[in-house]
């Protein structure tokens, strides 16, 4: 087109575009920024074009290809204007349907946006919560603009600020507007833009030239808002730069952009050419005598070049190293000329301010931080993408309302703002309004706007290590403190994450950090310690866990974890070793390894809640290894072949007497190990049978009694004395035991008392406590349940709160399902219904039990809670329930069920089993000098199992409340070690070691074909007893893997333990041996 050469011509040109009649043809907007293209927007675009051409629809519908619209999670999508209907995550094959619908002005509901657990469909962009809660001043514009078409920009009102400024190029006015708008640098430091411009305008070092630079060297991991704006709306930046140029009197502008942003470079190059063609850029713009042109400079990818002085060096063609300030760039910048450097987003806000006027602009945001800020919300969050909110919005709003909360089931624990220069902000501080100062105060920075959400599967030490590693590579290295400091921080953090850290290291980090901040030359060094200092400040516990306990809560740090299965196992079972041995068909050896750490091997191989499988690496993107089933295969092999059925008792005891009270898993484990150490152990049991909850609480179809007997016999063979029908408080006291010469006592009496619902009518006949019902059913006692049986499980809020504290979430609702299935099997009721107040999602570990219950015909009513018991002549007649819905996320990270008003309904029942939870019965322990919590659990030092009374130890459910068997066994093991320390006069203290397998097993060699099969192989399915055969008897449901299945399953193991330094050494040795021999 012809170059415009006067202001009047420009005004009429702009007017003519704006006055064009509105085009009401439906338009498909395809967001094709770099993110959109990566997720397939180009395919969508091609498919759409082809369909439109083939069906001659080009007059009925048009296409606009735009930059990213912010919601990267739902790309590729088609947005249908004018109604803004949105079709997210679109597949190419659905494109024709969508276009057809758009032409017919219809909508296709099933293709539209839905939140994960919601049935509601959101048809238009504005309705979607992600967009609804944003204030999209800058990002909103992308929708109307094809970045390579300048007319789109004019049509959307572009260059009106330019028109204002060029008609009245009053520098003072422009700067005063910017100052009045309180615009601050969006690059992170928040320097007042107006002030910078003023300084640049007033700066006169006689060199004659001045420069404006747009800083688009966006290098933070996880941040991409500058790319988005430059890609989606380059003319906006050009307009901002021209205004800046006029304001300070510069004649030339540079856009310094990373070469990693090819699309941004392409779009801005096209935009600059178009602007030149029109006459907006160049010499003597619109005959006003103002010269301004823009050049693009590509950065070569050094993070430090985002720093002003390094950026200047880079533009000059020198090595990108910062210079000590002063002199500041506004005084002495590129080639010595005054240079004003602004971030992309800052410049994007300039036309907005000039257009609307500063008075309008300051209505958004908060004092000292006006306007909006774009954040890139990434990490463990449901909705990732670019979020634009007014400054002063709380983190909570951004993360939970716009971001939609955590992406997985784990709870969000922190966010990292400002990338490697920022720090993490823990979840407790999410009510913090986001602005420059508030973030600084909590040890982070605004930075360019990256927000990385971290949940409980993120290790904070690892995060700090990641960022310091990034920084030690990206520090320019010029100044010693930053170069050496970042390297040393990384070195120390590596040591800590590999389990070699000391508490002195932590002190050193805390000493080193502030010095790096203080003494570094540029912003990179001055903020480099933030990730480290912030994680230490808010997650010190995690550091101490790594250093002292050699624990990484998130199971991330490889050298600490070794293999996640062994690491997660409460009793440190050598999982990787026995799985490898099974793969090599060495079943007896495998069993030996299992028995080494686990006296209840056969029991746990059936009923363990297998936390190992939840953390199994094979489970990330595939099926976890069936670890428990493999263990069962080995133990069954042992039973068949009569291997390791007994253990050798010590030849001669040391004569020290120890009393163990309670013969459950915890008590017997402790007795077993103490006996093996040579103590004279006596076990006291109140009931006539031993085994505790294993015998009373777990139904036979899950744990056949003959299997239980195998383990009990094995434990007994260690040589302890067992006294049954001997109740504490009735037959003896702890003091009495001590008088009799017992030197130490281990209390493990369990948690057997069912909790009450706390609703009216609970005391009537027909309402049975869950434990009572289960114990009766398990011991084969006759119990009349009637035809219609209801079971209430899950508990109430108060109980839940207690459980969380007691770390017993996994066992929730186990008794409920056990009770239901046992009832069905033994008493032949007509129907059995479970009423549970949460959803199936909330029953974490026992999915197979829930499925099993369903198969057997047990009905489960989710989201249902009891309100009152309806009685007839003092007997249960019915129960009134109320429906629940999931509300806000509570402290346990799950969504709290809230009652739906008016949804009450009544169910007639003959029996109602209440198994919401159990608590320990401590009536017989009142006068023994022990301390109890408000949930009646006994208070101990969890490190050692020691109670408040010297020599008296406690463990198992009576400490934790109802918990899993394996945790009880673990407590028994810890107690046995503590008791030994106590009795040998040592300091009672838990010793922590790095998790390592007892030995390394050579991996099985695979052919390529076999390997391919294994990669895609599914988990070996446990053969089950058919549900017909299950009814009305107690036969075991799980039948055990076949040998072939077991070997195949074991071969699937990824052998994580070989990934550690030790493991690699083993492999290297193997290779060397092979080479030699």
């Amino acid at each position, binding site marked *: 087109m012809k170059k415009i050469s006067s202001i009047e011509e420009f005004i009429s040109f702009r007017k003519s575009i704006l006055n064009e009649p509105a085009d009401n043809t439906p338009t498909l907007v395809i967001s094709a920024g770099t993110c959109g293209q990566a997720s397939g927007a180009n395919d969508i675009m091609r498919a759409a074009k082809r369909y439109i051409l083939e069906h001659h629809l080009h007059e009925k519908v048009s296409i606009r290809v735009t930059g990213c619209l912010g919601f990267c999670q739902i790309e590729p999508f088609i947005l249908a204007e004018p109604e803004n209907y949105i079709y997210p995550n679109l597949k190419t094959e659905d494109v024709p349907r969508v276009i057809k619908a758009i032409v017919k002005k219809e909508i296709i509901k099933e293709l539209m946006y839905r939140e994960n657990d919601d049935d509601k469909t959101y048809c238009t962009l504005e309705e979607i919560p992600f967009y609804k809660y944003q204030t999209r001043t800058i990002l909103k514009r992308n929708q109307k603009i094809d970045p390579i078409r300048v007319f789109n920009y004019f049509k959307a009102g572009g260059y009106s600020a330019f028109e204002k400024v060029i008609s009245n190029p009053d520098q003072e006015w422009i700067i005063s507007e910017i100052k009045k708008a309180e615009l601050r640098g969006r690059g992170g430091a928040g320097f007042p833009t107006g002030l910078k411009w003023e300084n640049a305008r007033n700066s006169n070092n006689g060199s004659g030239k001045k420069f404006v630079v747009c800083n688009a060297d966006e290098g933070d991991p996880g941040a991409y808002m500058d790319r988005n704006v430059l890609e989606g709306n380059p003319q906006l930046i050009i307009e901002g730069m021209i205004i800046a140029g006029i304001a300070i009197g510069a004649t030339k502008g540079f856009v310094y952009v990373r070469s990693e942003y090819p699309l941004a470079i392409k779009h801005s190059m096209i935009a600059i050419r178009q602007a030149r063609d029109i006459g907006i850029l160049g010499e003597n713009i619109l005959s006003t005598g103002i010269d301004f042109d823009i050049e693009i400079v590509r950065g070569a990818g050094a993070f430090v070049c985002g720093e002003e002085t390094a950026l200047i060096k880079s533009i000059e063609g020198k090595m990108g*190293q910062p210079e000590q300030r002063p002199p500041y760039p506004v005084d002495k910048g590129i080639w010595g000329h005054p240079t004003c450097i602004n971030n992309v987003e800052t410049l994007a806000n300039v036309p907005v301010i000039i257009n609307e006027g500063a008075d309008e602009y300051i209505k958004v945001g908060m004092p000292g931080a006006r306007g909006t800020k774009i954040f890139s919300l990434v990490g463990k969050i449901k909705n990732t993408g670019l979020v634009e909110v007014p400054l002063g919005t709380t983190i909570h709003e951004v993360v939970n309302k716009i971001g939609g909360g955590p992406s997985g089931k784990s709870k969000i624990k922190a966010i990292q703002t400002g990338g490697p220069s920022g720090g993490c902000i823990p979840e407790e501080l999410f009510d913090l309004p986001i602005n420059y100062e508030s973030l600084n105060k909590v040890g982070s920075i605004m930075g360019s706007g990256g927000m990385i959400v971290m949940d409980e599967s993120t290790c904070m030490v690892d995060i700090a290590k990641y960022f310091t590693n990034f920084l030690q*590579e*990206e520090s320019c290295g*010029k100044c010693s*403190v930053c*170069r050496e400091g970042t390297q*040393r921080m990384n070195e120390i953090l590596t040591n800590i994450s590999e389990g070699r850290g000391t508490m002195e290291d932590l002190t*050193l980090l805390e000493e080193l950090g502030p010095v790096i901040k*203080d*003494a570094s030359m540029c912003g990179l060094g001055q903020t480099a310690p933030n990730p480290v200092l912030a994680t230490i400040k808010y997650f010190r516990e995690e550091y101490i866990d790594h250093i002292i306990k050699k624990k990484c809560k998130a199971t991330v740090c490889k050298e600490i974890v070794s293999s996640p299965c062994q690491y997660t196992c409460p009793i440190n079972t050598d999982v990787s070793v026995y799985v490898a041995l099974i793969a090599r068909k060495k079943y007896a050896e495998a069993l030996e390894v299992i028995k080494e750490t686990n006296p209840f091997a056969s029991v746990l191989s059936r009923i363990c809640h297998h936390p190992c499988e939840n953390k199994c690496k094979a489970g990330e993107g595939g099926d976890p290894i069936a670890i428990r089933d493999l263990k069962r295969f080995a133990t069954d092999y042992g039973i068949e072949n009569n291997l390791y059925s007994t253990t050798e008792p010590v030849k001669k005891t040391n004569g020290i007497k120890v009393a163990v009270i309670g013969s459950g898993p915890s008590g017997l484990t402790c007795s077993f190990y103490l006996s093996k150490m040579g103590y004279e152990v006596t076990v006291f049991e109140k009931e006539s049978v031993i085994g505790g909850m294993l015998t009373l609480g777990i139904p036979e179809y899950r744990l056949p009694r003959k299997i239980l007997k195998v383990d009990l016999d094995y434990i007994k063979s260690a040589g302890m004395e067992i006294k049954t029908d001997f109740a504490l408080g009735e037959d003896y006291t702890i003091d009495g035991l001590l008088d009799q010469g017992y030197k130490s006592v281990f209390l493990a009496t369990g948690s057997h008392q069912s909790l009450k619902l706390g609703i009216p009518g609970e005391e009537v006949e027909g309402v049975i406590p869950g434990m009572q019902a289960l114990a009766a059913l398990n011991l084969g006692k006759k119990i009349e349940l009637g035809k219609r049986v209801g079971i209430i499980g899950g508990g109430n809020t108060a109980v839940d709160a207690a459980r969380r504290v007691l770390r017993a979430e996994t066992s929730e609702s186990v008794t409920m399902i056990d009770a239901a299935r046992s009832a069905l099997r033994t008493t032949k009721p007509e129907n059995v219904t479970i009423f549970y107040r949460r959803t199936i999602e909330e029953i974490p570990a026992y999915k197979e039990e829930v499925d099993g219950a369903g198969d057997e015909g047990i009905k489960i009513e989710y989201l249902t809670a009891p309100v009152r018991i309806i009685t007839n002549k003092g007997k249960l007649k019915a129960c009134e329930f109320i429906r629940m819905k999931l509300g806000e996320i509570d402290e346990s990270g799950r969504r709290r069920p809230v009652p739906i008003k008016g949804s009450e309904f009544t169910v007639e029942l003959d029996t109602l089993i209440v198994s919401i939870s159990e608590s320990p019965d401590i009536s017989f322990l009142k006068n023994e000098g022990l301390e109890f919590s408000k949930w009646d659990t006994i208070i101990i030092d969890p490190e050692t199992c020691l109670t408040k009374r010297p020599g008296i130890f406690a463990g198992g459910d009576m400490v934790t409340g109802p918990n899993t068997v394996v945790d009880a066994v673990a407590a028994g093991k810890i107690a046995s070690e503590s008791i030994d320390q106590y009795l040998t006069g040592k300091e009672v203290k838990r010793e922590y070691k790095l998790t390592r397998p007892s030995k390394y097993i050579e991996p099985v060699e695979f052919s390529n074909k076999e390997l391919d099969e294994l990669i895609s192989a599914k988990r070996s399915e446990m053969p089950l007893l058919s549900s017909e055969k299950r009814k009305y008897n107690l036969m075991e449901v799980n039948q055990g893997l076949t040998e072939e299945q077991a070997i195949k399953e074991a071969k699937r193991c990824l052998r994580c333990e070989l990934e550690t330094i030790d493991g690699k050494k083993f492999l290297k040795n193997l290779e060397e041996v092979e080479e030699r021999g």
Partner: protein
Amino acid sequence: MKIKIDGISFDAPEYFTILDAARFLGLNIPTLCYHEGLSPGGNCRLCVVEIGKGDRTKLVTSCTYPVEEGLVVRTSSERVIKARKMTLELLIAQSPTSKVLQDLASKMGLKQVRFKPKWESCINCGLCVRMCEEQMKAKAIGFVNRGNKLEITTPFDMESEDCRKCGACMYICPVVTLRCHGAHPESVLCSGCYNSLQPTCTSNEDNYNCWMGLKNECGTCYNGESNENINENIK
């Protein structure tokens, strides 16, 4: 320019840096990468001082910071000493054999080095680079890479045509010139420093006089091999 430095009011000329002012007044600020004949670099960070009043103070390198009207400077506040000591600890751990660094440590009373020694022979202070560029006008060496991979070398690690082998880089280097190995028990004298002042490599190269005394360790001598051979080795 009226400034106040460690409580002393002083009217400094405009072209003074804080370091100039301090030295003029006889106040001791340790320096490492500073040299009167070269432009200040601000690389080593040992000359940091605290400027400003009240809560709004910050650390700056005195060698680069120009005096300004009303500037308040403290050259040895606790914050300054802490930063200097930590910086020196980092540098010594990088290159424990540097006599210059060891001397500074004794002077500043550094008692411990908690980082694992790296035994490197360069602390990247940049003195040699500035020397080569500003005084010798050769620009034969420069910084290469960044961060933990930063090093000072010739372009592409090849023998530079611009290098006149003047040895100025070695002369000014705080790490290599005076490598102290400690006194020998028999002779009591260490004799290392003395030897380094002797032209010991003359047998290798006739065209220039080498003062380095490191006997082929310095990298400027090639054991008499001709340049062609060296180039071949590089290929």
